[in-house]
């Protein structure tokens, strides 16, 4: 960046910020968040695109050419292109107008990842909607068209920067169909929110404390792996476990008995991370919660105000992560 540009930047940044804030206030007043929205003349903006100004330049050149050569056909062409531009305003506008957007659901993510929002885009049976680009600010845009199917489920991504409930805010939706010379756009807010888990951080010891009331030597007889001994076989036992060798030796129909040693129950403990900052503690807890979940071990979470009993499974994992994500954040704050 040149010095002059820097100077400009500093000179105008204040004004620009002020203008931007004003614009945001205006847009917020005009376009209120709503789960389900239909784009219409109240929410759509329209203006010639950059290419549209190029087109106007072309028209001007043709008009000059037609005027100077006194050639009515060239003049006619210039007028035709003007008419085409005017007609395009309407076609571009109605390509977006009547489009319905509905927020369906969001998928949680970790800080630093892109959160995923699912939305339903639909329009009336008779209308074709073509070449519509939509996305969150900072996220990668998606192209959609409703030609054969009049509805489509879209996944939009937005980078999640902080833990807790993340609101990706306004969707930037725009289209320059049909000729690229007019651009129509809107910033609908569907009120979508994404649960953002803390960013997992490795490199710390497992912040655990053993459970006091159980010794961890309990045998779990279902779905076990380690061979333990023989049992007399009776109906209902798995035929795969029949000890055919023993049967052949005439020891009768025995069944192999397997057990799994349930490991010591783990408690991921907030207090085990003394000396770390809140966010860092959450990140470390998150890392270990994910790590342990992968091993099918039972674990619980203990934090100030949070006590999740040891368990395993996907539901449990999400409950733990949700607790980590919302630590210190009142759930109602964003509801």
């Amino acid at each position, binding site marked *: 960046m040149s010095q002059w540009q820097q100077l400009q930047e500093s000179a105008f940044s204040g004004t620009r910020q002020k203008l931007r804030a004003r614009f945001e206030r205006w847009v917020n007043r005009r376009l209120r968040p709503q789960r389900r929205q*239909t784009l*219409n003349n109240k929410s759509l903006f329209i203006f010639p695109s950059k290419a549209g100004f190029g087109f106007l330049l072309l028209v001007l050149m043709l008009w000059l050419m037609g005027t100077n*050569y006194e050639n009515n056909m060239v003049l006619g062409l210039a*007028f035709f292109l003007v008419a*085409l531009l*005017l007609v395009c305003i309407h076609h571009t506008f109605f390509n977006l107008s*009547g489009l319905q957007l509905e927020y369906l659901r969001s998928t949680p993510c970790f800080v630093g990842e892109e959160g995923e929002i699912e939305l339903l885009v639909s329009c*009336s049976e008779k209308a074709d909607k073509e070449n519509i*680009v939509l996305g969150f600010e900072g996220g990668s845009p998606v192209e959609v068209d409703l030609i054969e199917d009049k509805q489509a489920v879209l996944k939009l991504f937005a980078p999640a920067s902080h833990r807790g409930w993340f609101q990706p805010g306004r969707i930037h939706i725009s289209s320059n169909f049909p*000729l690229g010379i007019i651009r129509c756009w809107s910033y609908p807010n569907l009120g979508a929110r994404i649960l953002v888990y803390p960013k997992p951080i490795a490199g710390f010891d497992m912040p655990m404390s053993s459970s006091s009331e159980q010794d961890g030597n309990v045998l779990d007889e279902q779905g076990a792996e380690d061979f333990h001994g023989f049992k007399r076989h009776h109906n209902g036992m798995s035929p795969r476990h029949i000890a055919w060798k023993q049967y052949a030796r005439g020891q009768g129909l025995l069944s192999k008995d397997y057990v799994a040693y349930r490991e010591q129950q783990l408690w991921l403990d907030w207090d085990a991370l003394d000396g770390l900052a809140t966010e860092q503690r959450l990140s470390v807890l998150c890392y270990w919660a994910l790590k342990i979940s992968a091993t099918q071990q039972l674990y619980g979470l203990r934090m100030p105000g949070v006590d999740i009993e040891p368990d395993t499974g996907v539901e449990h994992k999400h409950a733990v992560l949700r607790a980590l994500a919302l630590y210190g954040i009142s759930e109602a704050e964003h509801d």
Partner: protein
Amino acid sequence: MTDTAVNYLPPRNGLLWLVIALSLSIVPMTAELPGWTLAVGLFVGLWRIQLYRGVWRMPGGLIKLLLVCVCSAGLFLTFGRFLALEPMVSLFVCGALLKLLEMKSRKDAQLLLYLCYFLVATQFLFSQGIADLLIGAVCLLLVTTALLVMHQPQGHQKPRRSMRLAGRLMLHSLPLMVLLFLVMPRIGSLWHIPLENHGGITGVSDSMSPGDFSSLSRSGGVAFRATFENARPRAEDLYWRGLIFSEFDGRRWSPSTNGPGTDGESWIQWGRDTRNGDTSEYSQEHEQALGRPVDYEIIIEPTQQPWLYSLMLTTDYRSATDKKIIQTTNQRLVADDPIRQRMVYSVSSSLDYAIERSRLPDVIRNVNLRLPDGFNPRARESAERWRLEAGSDQAYIDRVLAFFNATFVYTLEPPRLGKHTVDEFLWGTQQGFCEHYASSFVVMMRAAGIPARVVAGYLGGEYNSSENYYVIHQYDAHAWAEVWLPGRGWVRHDPTAAVAPERVRQSLGNLQASLVESPWSLGRYRNLAFFNNLRMQWDALNYRWHRSVMGFDSEQQSQFLDNWLDGVTPLKLLLVVLGGGGSVLVLMTLHLWWISRPKALAPEVKMIRRLQRLLARQGFERQQGEPVGDYLRRVAQDRPAAESLLMLFNRRFEEAYYGESELQEQEMRRLLRLLRRAI
């Protein structure tokens, strides 16, 4: 949000459309482009196709540089200058082709398609017939389709659908365009751009040697069209005068250059200004119009020459454009600038006239008696003898014409002549075209001491009854003679008529269509009634087009608006533009709105909305994303009295919403009424 990522690359079949659109915008101009541009075009096209197939890569810098060099060198060598139409068009075409080769993004494609629109406009600079309009319209459709496809989603392009869409866009814009065309003010040339000679048929040229006219008669094409306001003159009066040749060097006839005022070639001195139509003292005494004048309008095709055509004797004339017309002392009309575009002018001519009846100025007499020494000795000798034998000028003229009539043959393919053209023709070949007869006749006159000159122009024309006008073709080009006789002034004599009288009454096209028309022109088959009719209708259509649309200038415009609006005021114009344009747009908007209006809500959803509004007034807002069941249960906890009603309402809603049973509209309505009271 940067949508460059999505929009960066042009769609694949968009490229195909682009190539088609570009080549079709260039093809109609191939005649005006140097041959090497075609080679460049083919090269670029090949490369693009190979790129499309994924066989070749994008061209490297070296190849691009090489192409730029080839194009610049080509332009420089072909034209040597740049500030003219043809080199500019070639430059544009080269630019478009090179851009096509290096095109990568959608932005490039957009620019290229703008260039295509521009190329279509340049097509219109070269010619403006109805055929050009149709070709142009097809080009526009293709360019617009290509532009559309560039902005259509990748997977959904169907060529016919895209074309239909583009066609619809164009149809929608048509009424607005017509309106703009009618009311947008014409301001006339802002600055002068020289239109260089591009193609166009020169027609009658500024000199005449044997063979010129017979070759001209084969060049085909239209020289000009003429409409008579009242009665049509007789066919034998339709001698369209263009040029006068007084100077003869033994082979070539050319206009006199013998000092100012002698032969009117220095028309600036002797000319009359068109605007005030003043007739100077000089012209009044030397020109006398007898009889009532005929009024006619001429639309002349570009000739790249300044002279205009009119019937003898022009009494009044007016240019329809801002081009100036000047009348010379020898009664010709000349524009102040070569005619590079179709031009319209109207003339009044008196077909009965007397010019310089009483006295021929000596300078003019001398010029029109001069013959080069050492040429045509036999003709000069015979002329002197015959004049003596004849006794009077008129008898001598009759004798010469009778001589022609006896044994001469009128042919489009005369044998070549040597040094003494007139001698060889008169006593040797005796086969010739109009220029041979005119030339030898004038030489014979001058040799006998009668002032005479060759007049070049057109004879007759083809009458088109459907639009009441004459088409004068290039093959109607003709040369004849004017002879000065004491007491009568300049008198027209057409020696060709003595040989082939049918030529005067009929166009050469009718007499020898197979010789003068190209095999693929309809005119060749004019003996077949159907084709001839078709040809006439087509020409009439073109004529109408030129008169009404192409000739729609600021004057016609103000006249039209005056008639239409009963007096033009800015307010009325504004109303027309807003009202006319507005109503077109409103209709289109209504249609678009109708097809894209949002789906109606299902009746059960409407019901639930009504309940929601009812509950919201009581302070129970439904929260974002809250399922209906949860919401109603939440309300029920607060208002136990309404619990059963709410639950029933919820059940009916769910049954209808999930299609388990028909919507119980009556019941839900009743529930809603009850709920209103219960809450």
